[in-house]
């Protein structure tokens, strides 16, 4: 047990902390390297909007904004102030929706993203791996070959295009699914009514389908190339000679082995998948974090973009860390060390 903690747990925790540290530091450095001064940009925008402010008020606003962006003091002081604000969970008020705090708005949008992303991720991972292994074990199967070609096609094309194609086909040419949003415009979310939940699900079909399709293609192709190596391993050949049932060989000998690298790959791909989900929301007008981000871009809501970036880094890092912690459950070698 002690060895497990030393050899396995501590490196993971260090990696987790590095990830957050590097990510947050990046988001700290980037705005400061940018040639535009966010405070001045904000001030001149407010002046341009035609508010008749006297110079004193503008000066006060400038000071408030400088405080808000954490731009007062030397760079080192700023850096520490930045972290201490983060630990308090204070990301400042949204500039587009003043004075609602950024964390509150993200908190409202996040469940929509997660309810879409997590099931889609799990479904595509399980099915992609399962069918990928099947198709490399039965290379003659026509149906699986068709699936493989489809998987390759979907996988190679950017998320956005897949989403657009599905949207155009299934809500424009063949209007079976609603055009955008997570519920009809004008209705209020009401989680106690069955009707609302049904329309919510109906609205979620297309976005979820896009996520699942793209994910499925990726896992399918990855799993296939993994298993095609495993199949020629001695122990598989031996199992076949001994005359074990094909299904048992596939599930217990092949899939089990290939599962481990695929689990690592799942952790590695989370950042990309998350980015994909954000794009998806923009295409489908789904009210999650992605849509929030895009609205923030249009309304020049700097603190919101910053907040979303920080949230995503911490969220993805934590998810990766959790998968790493699950890993010993699947790999006895780590467990018994």
């Amino acid at each position, binding site marked *: 047990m002690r060895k497990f903690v030393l050899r396995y747990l501590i490196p993971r925790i*260090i990696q987790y902390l590095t990830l957050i540290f590097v*990510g947050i530091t990046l988001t700290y450095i980037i705005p400061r390297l940018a040639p535009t001064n966010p405070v001045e940009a904000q001030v001149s925008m407010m002046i341009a909007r035609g508010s008749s402010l006297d110079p004193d008020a503008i000066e006060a606003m400038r000071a408030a904004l400088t405080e808000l962006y954490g731009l007062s003091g030397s760079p080192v002081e700023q850096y520490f102030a930045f972290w201490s604000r983060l630990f308090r969970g204070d990301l400042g008020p949204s500039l587009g929706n003043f004075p609602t705090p950024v964390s509150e708005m993200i908190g409202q949008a996040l469940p929509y993203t997660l309810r879409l992303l997590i099931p889609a991720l799990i479904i595509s991972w399980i099915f992609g791996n399962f069918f990928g292994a099947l198709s490399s074990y039965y290379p003659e199967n026509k149906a699986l070959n068709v699936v493989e070609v489809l998987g390759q096609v979907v996988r190679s*094309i950017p998320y956005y295009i897949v989403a*657009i194609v599905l949207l155009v086909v299934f809500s424009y040419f063949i209007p079976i699914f609603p055009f955008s949003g997570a519920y009809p415009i004008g209705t209020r979310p009401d989680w106690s009514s069955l009707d609302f939940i049904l329309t919510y699900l109906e609205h979620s079909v297309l976005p979820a389908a896009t996520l699942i399709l793209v994910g499925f293609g990726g896992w399918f192709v990855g799993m296939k190339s993994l298993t095609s190596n495993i199949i020629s391993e001695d122990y598989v050949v031996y199992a076949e000679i001994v005359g074990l049932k094909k299904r048992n060989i596939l599930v217990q000998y092949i899939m089990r082995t290939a599962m481990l690298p695929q689990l690592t790959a799942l952790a590695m791909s989370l950042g990309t998948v998350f980015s994909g989900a954000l794009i998806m929301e923009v295409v489908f007008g789904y009210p999650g974090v992605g849509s929030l981000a895009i609205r923030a871009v249009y309304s020049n809501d700097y603190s919101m*973009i910053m907040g979303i*970036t920080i949230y995503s880094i911490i969220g993805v890092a934590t998810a990766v860390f959790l998968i790493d912690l699950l890993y010993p459950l699947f790999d006895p070698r780590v467990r018994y060390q």
Partner: protein
Amino acid sequence: MIFLSYDSPYDPSKSFVVPWDLPPSWEHPFGTTSRGQDLFWWLTFAVRNSLYVGVVTAIISRVISILVGLTAGYRGGWIDRVLMAISDTFVVLPLLPILILLSFLLRESMNLLNLAIILGLFGWSFDARLIRSQVLSLRERSFTRTAVYSGTNSFWITIHEHLPFVLPIVFATTLNNLLWSMGMEVTLSVLGLSDLSTPTLGTALFWANQHGALVAGVWWWITAPALVTAVLFLGLYLLFTSINEYIDPRTRLRLIGG
């Protein structure tokens, strides 16, 4: 798949590059946009620019990944650990929010070259890892030891002895990286975060969205760029897998029936 792999439908450097200097003809193969442009000819520019972004990004990130991969692999020890920790971080980081933040701040000075440089700075990590693992195995081979014993300095060993082995991987990953960066360009442009006056595949979609092309019934405005992107990506992807298969001696043997 096997015959496709040796006969990829696309030569990405030629297919769209030839006709862009011709005057627009009287027919409009892809229709025209609400902004009064011939979509087909506009898209020829778009494809060229998107490829440009892809290539610049690929070159930059290749240089970084080769440097990091070779150093980490050959030096090992704590340098290796630090470099790989950083590169793992880059692999896992959710890039899109960071890129949104970046391009939001740089919006005024955003042009294709800057975009490509930024993407290049973020797109090296996974391939660095690949190169490193290759070098790790090369380091144990006898020719490396011979070189070390005969007093060759480590820089020379890495450049002259190891780089040639690594190059095939580099070529294979270049195309993958190209696809990635072009996809990112499409994404950022669609969100309105790049230089919108330059035609690229992403800005084509951005303007179509901006004019509500689907709502107005101008469906081809969205469909054409989407299809062109899809075909281009698919072509490049098939090229990538076929090169990969060609480089890997095992599959090559299988293909010639060995």
